[in-house]
Each structure stands twice: as structure tokens, then as C-alpha cells.
């Protein structure tokens, strides 16, 4: 063994060792999700400190289950936003898939699992239709999907006459109410979907194409990327995930409610923005968007746990969301300052 190999390097060549807390802050600051993670930690910690009912197994299960439905829609919406698109019909697609599932299972007596598959295909088909109309007719996704939300929502009312379909088979209610090793099944479904979509977005060429299209669609087209095919595929994915959320909600409620999905339009967009997804496209990730949905879910939870007046709820939840976004922006500015 030579002398050189045993001599430690000069102190000036090693990065300075930071205290653990500073090291964590530094690592968070270097991560694109650092701001949203820090905001989440603060909100989570404050909730634990302020309410004895927050950090209980029962309450965590409530948050996890509620997150699952909005989280699935958020994944699809975040992919579209990274592409530079928006789909305002995702809630209506989820609701339509739910009632079609109810009709197939209850009124037509079809096998529940087959019904589930058909509903998912229908959801993907609705999304694909949106994508096809947007790409082939060169329509703005925001405007087109407002119209399609009316079409899908109207079809929902035509099919149900506004009345819930009851008698959903017990075979399928496990998907909404069951637990896997103490974890709600819908939450497990969310994690699986998130893992798959995050892998595709961050580790495959398709994911890189999506970021490229979101950053500059013309440049992406010149590079030979099949822009329209990928856009249609992303809309189909958003429709598929919305339908999955809708059918899981039917399994959870045990009835196919025509109102399913009514609240799934703005929440996922807000969650994605909180999670660092740029509305202009090209920036963000589904993981960040779901973390944004976790923040919203915790805020909705603590508002009820603290017994805040229903008339103040929107003010409080909106205020916390603004604080979370501001915190994220400040963290980014801090990061940029250090980089300079």
C-alpha cells in the first residue's frame, strides 16, 4: 500500500460537512420538489401539534382514502399540464364511468369485473375523443373540454334521470371499502398508478417527449416526435384514470351517484400547481402533483377537525394554499440565489 493512498485528502478538497438539519435543508433546496415537501412537512407538523385527533390511524385512513380519488384524477391532469394542455371534463368522465358501471352491473346484470374493465375502456375512449378533437380540429383544450364536460355530464343525467343507481354487487365494493394490510385499497391503487406514470414520465423516452412537447411543441415536432399521438395518448390516460376514480367511488359508496366527479375539476389543477407543475407546460412531475393533493387533503381534514365555520372554510383553505405556493416560490428563489 503506497503512502499516497493512505494520506487523507486535504481539507480544502472536501465539501464542508453541514449539520444534519442544514444538510436536509440543502438537499431539499436542491430538489425540484423541495418547496412542496417543506410546505407539506410544516402543514403536517402543525396539524399534529394543534389537533389531538389528527395523527390517529383512523384519521390517516380517512385522508388516504379521500386522497386516492382526487389523486388519480390529479395524476392524469398533471401529465396533461406538463404537455401544456388541460382537461376540464375529467370529473364528468369519472361521473359518467361510475353511472355506466352501475347500469352495467345492476340494471344489465353484467359481471362486475367485466363492467369495471368496460368502464375503464369507456373512460379512456372519452379521453381519446377529447384528444382527437383537440389535435385534429386544432381546438384549444380548455374550450373543447368545457363543452365535452357538458356532453358527458348531460349523458350522465340522461342515463340516470338524476337518480342514484343502488344495489352495486358486493364483489366490487371491496375496491372502495377494503383494506390491504391496513391500507385502504383505493390508496394502494393510487400508489400503483403513480409509480407507473412517474416511471414512464421520468425514466422512458415517452416521458421525455412529453416534457419536450410541453416546453416547445414546434421544436418537438421538428425533432420527429409524434406530437399529436402523444397528446391523444395523454388525454386517453387522463380519461382512464378519471374513470378508475369514478368506479372506485361507486365501489366506495355502494351506489352509482350522478354527482360523482362534480368536485374533481379544479382540485386536481390546484394540486398540480401547488406541486410545482407549470400551467405553461414542460415543468413538474406527477409525484409533485400528488404531494400537492396531499396538502389540499390535509387542509380539508384539519378544517373539519378544528371545527372551522363553513362560511370561513374557503377563506382558510384558500389562504393556506396561497401560503403553500408562496413557500414553494420562496424556496425556488432561495435555490436560484444560491446557484448564482
Amino acid at each position, binding site marked *: 500500500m503506497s503512502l499516497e493512498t493512505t494520506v487523507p485528502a486535504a481539507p480544502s478538497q472536501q465539501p464542508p460537512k453541514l449539520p444534519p438539519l442544514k444538510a436536509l435543508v440543502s*438537499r*431539499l433546496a436542491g*430538489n*425540484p*420538489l423541495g418547496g412542496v*415537501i417543506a410546505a*407539506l412537512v410544516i402543514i*403536517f407538523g402543525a396539524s399534529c401539534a394543534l389537533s389531538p*385527533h389528527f*395523527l*390517529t*390511524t*383512523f*384519521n*390517516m*385512513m*380517512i*385522508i*388516504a382514502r*379521500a386522497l386516492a*380519488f382526487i389523486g388519480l384524477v390529479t395524476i392524469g391532469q398533471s401529465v396533461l399540464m406538463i404537455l401544456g394542455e388541460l382537461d376540464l371534463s375529467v370529473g364528468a368522465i369519472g361521473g359518467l364511468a361510475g353511472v355506466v358501471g352501475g347500469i352495467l352491473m345492476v340494471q344489465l346484470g353484467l359481471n362486475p369485473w367485466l363492467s369495471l374493465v368496460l368502464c375503464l375502456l369507456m373512460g379512456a375512449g372519452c379521453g381519446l375523443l377529447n384528444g382527437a378533437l383537440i389535435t385534429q380540429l386544432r381546438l384549444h383544450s380548455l374550450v373543447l373540454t368545457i363543452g365535452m364536460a357538458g356532453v358527458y355530464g348531460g349523458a350522465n*343525467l340522461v342515463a340516470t*334521470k*338524476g*337518480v*342514484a343507481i*343502488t344495489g352495486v354487487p358486493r364483489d366490487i*365494493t371491496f375496491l*372502495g*371499502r377494503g383494506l390491504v394490510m*391496513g*391500507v385502504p385499497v383505493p390508496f394502494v391503487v393510487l*400508489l400503483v398508478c403513480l409509480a407507473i406514470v412517474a416511471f414512464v414520465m*421520468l425514466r422512458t423516452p415517452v416521458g421525455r417527449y412529453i416534457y419536450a412537447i410541453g416546453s416547445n411543441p414546434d421544436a418537438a415536432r421538428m425533432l420527429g416526435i409524434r406530437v399529436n399521438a402523444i397528446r391523444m395518448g395523454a388525454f386517453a390516460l387522463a380519461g382512464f384514470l378519471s374513470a378508475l376514480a369514478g368506479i372506485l*367511488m361507486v365501489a*366506495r*359508496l*355502494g*351506489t352509482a*351517484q*350522478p*354527482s*360523482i366527479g*362534480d*368536485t374533481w375539476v379544479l382540485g386536481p389543477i390546484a394540486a398540480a400547481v401547488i406541486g410545482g407543475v407549470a400551467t405553461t407546460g414542460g415543468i413538474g*412531475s406527477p*409525484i*409533485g402533483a*400528488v*404531494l400537492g393533493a396531499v396538502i389540499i387533503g390535509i387542509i*380539508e*381534514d384539519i378544517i*373539519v*377537525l378544528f*371545527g372551522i*365555520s*363553513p*362560511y370561513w*372554510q*374557503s377563506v382558510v383553505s384558500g389562504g393556506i394554499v396561497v401560503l403553500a405556493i408562496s413557500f414553494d416560490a420562496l424556496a425556488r428563489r432561495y435555490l436560484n440565489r444560491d446557484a448564482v
Partner: protein
Amino acid sequence: MKTAFAFAAMLTAAPFLAPLAAGQAQAADTGAPLRFVLIPKTVHPWFDKANNGAQAAAAMITQTTGRKVEIEYRAPQTADVSSQNDIIERAIATHPDGLILDLLDEKGNRATMDEAVDEKIPMTVFDSLPPEGMDITAVGADFCEQGTMAAERLANLVGRKGEVAIMMGVPTAPNHTLRAECEKKVFAKYPDMKVVATGVDNDSIETAQKQASAIMQAHPDLVGWVECDASGPVGVGQAIRESGKTGKVKEVGLDNLNDMIQLIKEGVAESSASSRPEMQGYWAVVSAWQRAMGQKTPKYIDTGIDLLTAKSL
């Protein structure tokens, strides 16, 4: 990104590793304040009136027994079953001494109510019916009777002939659809009466006003209106007044919102079939209190329906 994955994994695992909720002491037998959580269908003035009745009952019990009774009012922002279930579940997490619920759909709320049963939290429902097989007191009025009363009143006002219209509330709300069905049945009894239009206001005064104006334009021979929710009659009344058809187009409204009462006083609406929200809130709390004390309570408490007219006001 690794940090993000690690944090996501930590967040996922933490709740399930967290210690089980320490047994939350039930206040029922300790002399501590009794805490009831009142969860209506949504944020709406009708439910504020029910809450006023609930607060009055809490004050009465506190004064009479010397034991403090608290009512926590937690309303969903939208009339959506899953949103209401979320609120109910979060209320269960706080282990109150009772839940007082106005169910959006007893079948859709069933799974969440089962969780309350598992947690041994007594429940009382008002303005709605409990799921089948659940031993729960229901406080309220008969929705069909309310719709029938309004429709019969209008039929008599217009001499049982002519074109009439119905303003639906929220098409997915069972109590609204039930009222509409019963109103249609009344009009179907009279061969000279015809329902020429059905509007949908989604429990919004503004929407009801717009729809009613359009319907009256399209049907100039319209002689009367009935509605299915609390917002509809206010919007319809405003449309009647704006179109200068006060007295020519009759209206029999529902419930007793302040705007509705004003319309009756002004002569725009002839009357209103009101389901006494304050009384429903009051007796729901009395029932919940008795349940918390371990007493058996009636299956159904009928709070009745008032017919509000200019004379009775």
C-alpha cells in the same frame, strides 16, 4: 427525486405506524360537556335555520340540566355525497357524543355511517331517512306531503285549469325529485291542468330566476308555479315580479327563507309550504342528547309542515 420518493414512502407508512388512537373518553358519563356534530347537506340558509334550532335546544338542555351541550356545525361546501362522507368521517375522527346528519343519500352514506356504528357514536338524522336496518331516529317532515300541499294549493288558486310549471331543485337530490313527483301527481289528477315546463335550478336563486324568466317567455299562458327546493321559489318570485306578472302568475313556494317570506308579504307569492327547519334542528338535538344518555328514542319524529300565507305572517 430520491428524496421525493423517500418522503412519499415515509408519508405513506407514517400514518399506519402511528400509535392507535388513544381511547377517546366519551363524555356521556363524566359530566364533561356533551359535543354533537351537526352535518347538513351543504352550506345553505335553510340549514342555518336548522342550526339555529339546534343551538336553541343545546342552550335549553344546558340551562335545564346544568351540563354544557355544544353543537359543532360542519357543512360540506357542495351537495355531494362523497364530500359529505368525508366530513362525516372527519367528524367521527374527533369522537363526538353524537352525530346529527341530514343525509344526501342514505345508501351512498351507508358505508360511512357503518364506521360511526363501529366507533360506537350514536346518530340522529333530520330532513332525511336513515339507511334500512339502522336503529336511528329520523326527525323531519314528509317531502311528498309538502309537495302535494303546495301543488293542491296552486291548483285551487288557478281554478284547477291552465298551464303550470315546476322548478326542480337539484335533480340528484332525492327529496327534491320526490317533491316534484308528488306535485306532478296532483296536477295529473286535474284534466284541465297541464305541466308545460320543468326547470332545473340546482338550488341556486340566480339560476331559478333565469330559468323562470325564459319559461314564462316561452309559455305566455302560464298561470302558476310550484318548486322543489328552498332557492327555487325565491328565484321564480323575482322573475314573476320582474316580468310584471305579479297576480297573473300565481306562486306557491316552499320553506321559510327570509326572501320567501318577503315575497309573500309583497303579494308576489301567495303562500309557502314550510317544513320548519328550526324545529327539525331542535328535536334532532333533543333526540341525540337522549341517545347520548343511553335512552331509547322514537323511530320517527314528525315536525309537520306550515302553510305560510300573508295572513299567518
